C-alpha cells in the first residue's frame, strides 16, 4: 500500500500548511506526493470510477470548470480543484483530497495540459480558447497550441473532445482525435465592430491570410472564413443564440443543443460568461447530463473565486474583476462599460510568476474607453508606476492618477473615496487579487479561499 502511505503523508502536509498560515494547502500536498512518486497522479486518477473531465483555456477555465461542477454535482461526487490550483501539483492535490469522489472535474493550466492528459487519460476534455498570455512563461502562443495538438492527437473515440469552434486554433483540434463536440456563438447583434488590437489568431492557420469575419465576438473568437483557402469555422453542435446582456447584472441566451433548446438565465454578466456557460453546458452534455440539469446548474451559479465577485465591506461593496491578459482585461472593461462606467477604479498590477513577470501586456489592453470616463484611477501593486504610465500615455491627466503601490492602502483609499452604499471597482492581477482578498478576509468579510464552497 505504498500509495496509501504517500497519500497520508501528503495530506498531513496540507494540514500543516494551513495550520502554519501559509495558505490553503492547495498545491503543497500534491507537490510532496509528486516528489515521493511522480507517477502517483496516474494511479490517483484511476481510483475515480467515472474517470475525469479536464477543462483548459487561456481565459475562463476556472469559471467554466466551476459552472460544470455546479451542473454535475447534483448527480456525482466530484474531485474538483475549485480554487484554481491548476498545475500538475494542484491537480494531484485535488485528487488526493477526493475521498469517495466518482468523477474528476479538473481545471488544467494550458502548458500543463499535455502532461495531465497523458497521465490521467481523461474521459472528456473541454478546450475553450487560446490568447496571448504570460509569454514569459509559455514562450509563444504557437508552442502552447502545438502542445495541445499533440495531447489531443490519437485520443480514443471514447474520449469526448469539446472545443470552441469560434477559436480557429482550438476548433482545428476537433479533427485530431476523440469524439468532438463543437460549440460557438451565433448572434451577430453582439459582434464587435472590428477585430480588437490584441487579437491573436486572426490570420488563417492554414495559409496566413487575414480571416474575414461574419462576426467577431471576443478577441479573435467569432465566425471566421479565410477568403483565400476557405478555412472556416466548423459546423456548430451546441450554439448560443438570442443572447441578452444586462449590464453588470446578468446575461441570458438560448442554448441550442442536439437534444433540444432551452433558455438559460445567468447570474453573471458579459459575453465571455456566455462562452464559459456554453463550454460548461457542452461538457456536461457530453458527460451525459440532461438539458434540465444544465439549465438548473447554470442558473444556480453565481461566481468563481475572484473572477467577478461582489464582496460587502462594511457599508460599501467591492466588485473584483480579475485581469490577467489583454483579451480577458478587454472583456472586463467591456462589461464595466455596459454596466454604466464607474468614475473611480483601483487597478492592481503585480509581476510575480503567476501574474506574468513581463508587464507589457497592459499596453495591449484597450483600457482607453474606461480611462476616459474615470474621474480618478488608483494605480497599485508592485508595478504601479508602470500602470500609471499606461494611464498617462493614454491621455489621463496625471492629476487624476493616484500612485499607491501598497495594496492595502490602495484598497482603503478606494473605499474612502466610495460613498456609503456605493461600490468600488477593483481590477487586480492574480496575486494582487489573492492578497486583496486576504486583506478583506482578515477584516472578516470573506472566508479564506480554502474554506469556500461553490455558491
Amino acid at each position, binding site marked *: 500500500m505504498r500509495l496509501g502511505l504517500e497519500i497520508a503523508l501528503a495530506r498531513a502536509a496540507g494540514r500543516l500548511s494551513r495550520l502554519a498560515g501559509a495558505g490553503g494547502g492547495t498545491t503543497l500536498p500534491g507537490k510532496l506526493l509528486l516528489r515521493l512518486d511522480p507517477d502517483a497522479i496516474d494511479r490517483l486518477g484511476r481510483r475515480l470510477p467515472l474517470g475525469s473531465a479536464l477543462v483548459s483555456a487561456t481565459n475562463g477555465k476556472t469559471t467554466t470548470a466551476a459552472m460544470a461542477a455546479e451542473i454535475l454535482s447534483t448527480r456525482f461526487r466530484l474531485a474538483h480543484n475549485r480554487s484554481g490550483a491548476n498545475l500538475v501539483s494542484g491537480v494531484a492535490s485535488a485528487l488526493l483530497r477526493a475521498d469517495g469522489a466518482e468523477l474528476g472535474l479538473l481545471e488544467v493550466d494550458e502548458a500543463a495540459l499535455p502532461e495531465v492528459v497523458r497521465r490521467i487519460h481523461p474521459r472528456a476534455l473541454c478546450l475553450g480558447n487560446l490568447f496571448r498570455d504570460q509569454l514569459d512563461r509559455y514562450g*509563444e502562443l*504557437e508552442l502552447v497550441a502545438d502542445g495541445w495538438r499533440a495531447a489531443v492527437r490519437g485520443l480514443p473515440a471514447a474520449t469526448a473532445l469539446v472545443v470552441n469552434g469560434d477559436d480557429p486554433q482550438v476548433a482545428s483540434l476537433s479533427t485530431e482525435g476523440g469524439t468532438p463536440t463543437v460549440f460557438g456563438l451565433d448572434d451577430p447583434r453582439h459582434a464587435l465592430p472590428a477585430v480588437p488590437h490584441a487579437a491573436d489568431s486572426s490570420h488563417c492557420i492554414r495559409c496566413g491570410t487575414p480571416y474575414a469575419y461574419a462576426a467577431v465576438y471576443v478577441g479573435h473568437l467569432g465566425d471566421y472564413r479565410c477568403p483565400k483557402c476557405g478555412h472556416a469555422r466548423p459546423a456548430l453542435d451546441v450554439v448560443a443564440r438570442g443572447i441578452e446582456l444586462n449590464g453588470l447584472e446578468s446575461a441570458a441566451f438560448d442554448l441550442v443543443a442536439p437534444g433540444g433548446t432551452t433558455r438559460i438565465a445567468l447570474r453573471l454578466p458579459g459575453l465571455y460568461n456566455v462562452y464559459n456557460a456554453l463550454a460548461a453546458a457542452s461538457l456536461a452534455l457530453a458527460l451525459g447530463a440532461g438539458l434540465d440539469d444544465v439549465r438548473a446548474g447554470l442558473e444556480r451559479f453565481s461566481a468563481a473565486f475572484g473572477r467577478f465577485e461582489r464582496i460587502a465591506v462594511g457599508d460599501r461593496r467591492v466588485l473584483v474583476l480579475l485581469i490577467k491578459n489583454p483579451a480577458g482585461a478587454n472583456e472586463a472593461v467591456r462589461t464595466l462599460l455596459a454596466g454604466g462606467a464607474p468614475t473611480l477604479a483601483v487597478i492592481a498590477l503585480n509581476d510575480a510568476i503567476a501574474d506574468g*513577470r*513581463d*508587464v*507589457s501586456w497592459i499596453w*495591449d489592453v484597450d483600457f482607453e474607453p474606461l480611462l476616459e470616463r474615470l474621474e480618478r484611477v488608483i494605480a497599485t501593486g508592485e508595478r504601479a*508606476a*508602470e500602470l500609471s504610465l499606461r494611464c498617462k500615455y493614454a491621455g489621463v491627466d496625471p492629476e487624476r492618477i493616484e*500612485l499607491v503601490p501598497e495594496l492595502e492602502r490602495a484598497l482603503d483609499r478606494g473605499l474612502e473615496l466610495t460613498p456609503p452604499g456605493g461600490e468600488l471597482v477593483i481590477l487586480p492581477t492574480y496575486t494582487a487579487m489573492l492578497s486583496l482578498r486576504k486583506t478583506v478576509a482578515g477584516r472578516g468579510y470573506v472566508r479564506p479561499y480554502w474554506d469556500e464552497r461553490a455558491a
Partner: protein
Amino acid sequence: MSRIVVGHLYPDYLNIYADRGNIAVLERRAAWRGHRLEVRDVSVGDDLVPGEHDLLYIGGGQDREQALIAPDLAAKGEAARAAVDGGAALLAVCGGYQLMGRSYLDGSGERLPGVGLFPLETVAGSRRLIGDVLLECELEPGERRALAGFENHAGRTLLDESGTPLGRVVAGFGNDGESGFEGCRIGNAVGTYLHGPLLPRNPWLADWLLERALSRRGEGDVMLEPLPDELEHEAHEVAARRARERGGRR
C-alpha cells in the same frame, strides 16, 4: 511646430509585446513639445517610399508572424536602407530587430531573409532567453544612459566584428546570452530585443529618436526641452531593480 511622419511597419502582424505603447510615447512626447506625429501603417503589399518617413518603427512578432511578413519586408530592404541612409531614425524591436539583420534561421529550420541594415545574423537556439534586462548605452559620446526592458527570444544574434551594439548588458541575457552585448546601432537606427514596452520607462531614448526625426525634417540640431518625467523615472527604477534581482544569468 513640426509634423513628424512615422512609418509603422506591419502593425497588423508585428505587435506582440505592446509595440503600440512605444508609438503612444512618441506621439505624446512630440505633442507635449508642440509637434505632431503622423503615423502611417506600412504593411504587406504597401510601398515603402524612401524620403517619405522621418522615423521607422518595426515591432515584435512570433515566428509565425515573422515568417508571414519576411519576404515582403526583404523586398522593401533597399528602400529601408535608403531611408536610414537619408537620415531617418529607426527603432526595431525583437522580431523586427532580427529581420533588420541579414537573416533569421527560425526554430523550424527555415531561413527568413532580412533587410541587411544591421550587420548581424540570428539563429534560433533551443532555450528561450526570457527575463528583465538592464543595459548601459552611450549613444552620444560621454552620455552614459541606462535602458531597462524585458526580453523574450529564442534567437541568438551575432554582430559582425564591425557592428556596434546598442549597449552593454548590466543584467539579463542580451543578444546571445554570452557576448555581453545587446542590440545594434548604426547612425540613427537602433535595434534591440528590449520590449516592456521600451520607451515609456526609458523616455530619453524616445526623445533621442524624436530629435533625430526632427533633424531630418530640416530643423537642424534639435534639443527637445525636458518634461516632468517623475513617473517614468520611477517605472524605470522598478524595472532596473527587477533586472538586477532576477534578470537572466549568463
